[in-house]
């Protein structure tokens, strides 16, 4: 969906892969005018999967189709002098330039942020990178596996006697992208409220991962205790936060308060546990966590996900069945809220994609535009907005600049 809240915001998008495109996707979704600038051969992750098995060509995979809705797409070869000149014209009047190249790349292209900020006082430049713009590992290689590992997310997950388990997919890249979108909004607020001019923001994915993993480093300093892997349990503590097998899959319960514990005992048909010496207080439930787990485990095995979810929630216990993503697509809570949006993608056909994380109360959103084809809006932007004539456009194309 596409809201129009940022109708007065113009973004030049020089991003690729995940973190950068997710940042600009969020901005486009709330109405910013986002021009995605790709090299004439397409950004690096344009064709990354998933694909339909029968699909043999086309300019995109599923990830690109999701991350780039509501953007306008142009191509420009920035290794060419003429390409850089046109890029400068695009930046004229922009509120934001967002990029996620390796640190130092913009400078090499002759687009150092200090120079751009001088030339375009209204502009802010948002740089998203793995480790940030300085520090000993600035230029090191990194992927999701090592990002989560260093950021502290991985260590406490999995079986105590096995290797720790990394989070799925590219969560940390998405969270880094979210920080990028936030930095973009903050830089405009600072400009309009305090400074009168734009600035550079250096966003680091490693720091984004560490910042969203607050329990460990601070809790460790307070208590001296390192949280270890607790298998199916989130942790061994004065609570029961656990993912357990049931008749038709798995269900998760987060029993934290005294009231939730009492309700769980009622649900299990074992009200006598409420006054049992082993479980009477949160502290005793911590000490006797294994014994409590064994009781809950046996109970879950006797029921299915739907029953556990319904009966648990009826007693105000945070208890849910664990869905797979196909089931998620059909979950009534989301379908009744029209959360997923159907896109007619020019290459992939009809796909259903997650909607906006927010719902603005001021106006209704419009349907999203599919992700642009490679150079789809070259004529509209270079011709229409920058005023180049047909012959100039043809020349640029022949020279491999667009």
């Amino acid at each position, binding site marked *: 969906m596409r809201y129009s809240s940022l109708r007065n915001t113009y973004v030049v998008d020089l991003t690729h892969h995940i973190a950068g495109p997710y940042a600009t996707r969020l901005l486009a979704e709330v109405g910013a005018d986002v021009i995605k600038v790709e090299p004439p051969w397409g950004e690096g992750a344009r064709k990354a999967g998933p*694909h339909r098995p029968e699909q043999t060509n086309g300019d995109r995979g*599923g990830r690109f189709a999701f991350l780039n809705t509501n953007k306008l797409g142009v191509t420009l070869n920035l290794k060419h002098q003429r390409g850089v000149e046109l890029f400068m014209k695009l930046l004229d009047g922009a509120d934001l330039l967002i990029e996620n190249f390796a640190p130092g790349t913009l400078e090499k292209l002759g687009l150092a942020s200090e120079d751009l900020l001088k030339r375009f006082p209204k502009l802010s430049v948002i740089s998203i990178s793995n480790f940030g713009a300085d520090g000993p590992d600035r230029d090191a290689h990194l992927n999701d596996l090592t990002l989560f590992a260093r950021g502290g997310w991985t260590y406490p997950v999995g079986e105590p006697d096995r290797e720790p388990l990394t989070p*799925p997919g590219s969560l940390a890249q998405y969270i880094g992208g979210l920080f990028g979108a936030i930095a973009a909004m903050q830089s405009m*607020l600072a400009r309009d409220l305090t400074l009168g*001019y734009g600035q550079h923001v250096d966003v680091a994915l490693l720091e984004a991962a560490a910042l969203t993993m607050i329990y460990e480093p601070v809790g460790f300093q*307070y208590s001296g205790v390192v949280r270890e892997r607790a298998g199916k349990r989130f942790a061994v503590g004065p609570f029961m936060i656990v993912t357990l097998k049931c008749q038709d899959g798995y269900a998760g319960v987060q029993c934290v308060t005294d009231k939730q514990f009492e309700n769980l005992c009622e649900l299990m048909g074992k009200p006598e546990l409420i006054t049992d010496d082993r479980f009477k207080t949160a502290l005793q439930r911590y000490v006797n966590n294994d014994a409590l787990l064994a009781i809950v485990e046996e109970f879950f095995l006797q029921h299915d996900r739907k029953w556990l979810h319904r009966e648990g929630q009826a007693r105000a216990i945070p208890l849910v069945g664990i869905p797979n993503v196909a089931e998620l697509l059909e979950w009534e809570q989301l379908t009744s809220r029209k959360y997923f949006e159907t896109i007619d993608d020019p290459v992939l056909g009809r796909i259903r994609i997650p909607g906006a994380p927010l719902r603005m109360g001021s106006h209704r959103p419009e349907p999203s535009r599919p992700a642009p084809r490679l150079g789809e809006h070259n004529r509209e932007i270079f011709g229409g907005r920058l005023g180049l004539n047909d012959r100039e456009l043809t020349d640029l194309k022949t020279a491999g600049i667009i």
Partner: protein
Amino acid sequence: MKTIVEGKLRAIDLSMGWAGPLLGELLAEMGVEVIKIEDTLHFDWWRGSLSMGPPEMQVIERSAPFNTANRGKIGATLDLTSPRGIEIVKRLVATADILIENYSPDVMPKLGLAWGTLAPLNPRLVMISMPSFGAEGPERNARGYGNTIEAVAGVTGLVGYHDGGQPYTLSNALGDPSAGLNGLFAVLVGLREREDTGRGQHIELAQVEGVVPFVAEAILEAQLTGQVPKPRGNRHPQHAPHGIYRCGSGFIALAADSDEQWRELAVVLGLESLANDSRFATTPERKRNEDALDAELSRALKDLGADETSRKLIDAGLIAGQVHSAADILGDAQLSARGFFVPVERAVVGTHLYPGVAEHFSETPLVADRPAPLLGEHNRKVFGEILRMSDAEIEALERDKIIGTLPRQFTTPKAA
């Protein structure tokens, strides 16, 4: 240097736990004046349970997560079950730019603080509600914490070992930080729209709807391939090696995404025989023989040190990292060099290092080194300076237990 907002905006934070409080904290880092309101009976549950210690221990001032997620806020108390308390909340809201709440959908209307009541008091107010599942829909009243949100959003079902077994919840209750960050983005969008229209609005952020986009690729994989993705453990669909291995007393994560990287990796580890092993020569062969590859690497890595080995690999331009425990992460070379952890002195607990910021502004740095408030710490400031109540009025509120600095359980004798 200046902050982003320089105190020119005010937020009222009625939220508890992590999701809403994180949003408030991030606003405070920008220089927004954030007033956190707690009830002295139902104070922020992230402060912990009074039953964990005697009153003189001040248990609720010793919570690491609370003291992290509420840094830089002004702390005041109000009895939200009394009409006088609610009346004062409304007076504060009338002076504010932003209102944050993360109750279940029915609570604010029950308190007499529905959007329809508040909007006429302050047409420029940007209010954000952060229910777990949304204000509408069959599950609107369902209960959920961060882990619950993560589970129903499809994340948990994707976490598990490659050789089978059960799904696992993540380590950080992802639903919470996701909601805090999405909520901050939403509020900033609301403020910018207000610059344009002159009007505030009510924004809804269903926490589950903020997490689902993180698994968009899996959702598309299910649609485009017809196969529901299963947990992959630490493995990668195309590349090998891609795993986590015991390394001395810790663990190391490492990966190679080309044949050259693999050979380089084997050589740096002193495993020339593996570099030349025909079973592992190409990516398809390494994927086919991944169990054998992992066994060889496990054997070779188990007696090395995780920190030195990952440093050696990183310096050779390869993809590696130590799996950091809570203790290790405080010593991460890159985070330390960038000054990520910041010391904060907080009453009752003293000085500790807290996570700093992930965004470095060239002109208006974020400020993350101010402590979280004690319960009711700034009552005088909020009610005296901001609402201009007289000392007598404030004392009356204290006497009637509308405000206070101790949990009401400690100040009200139990009924016989």
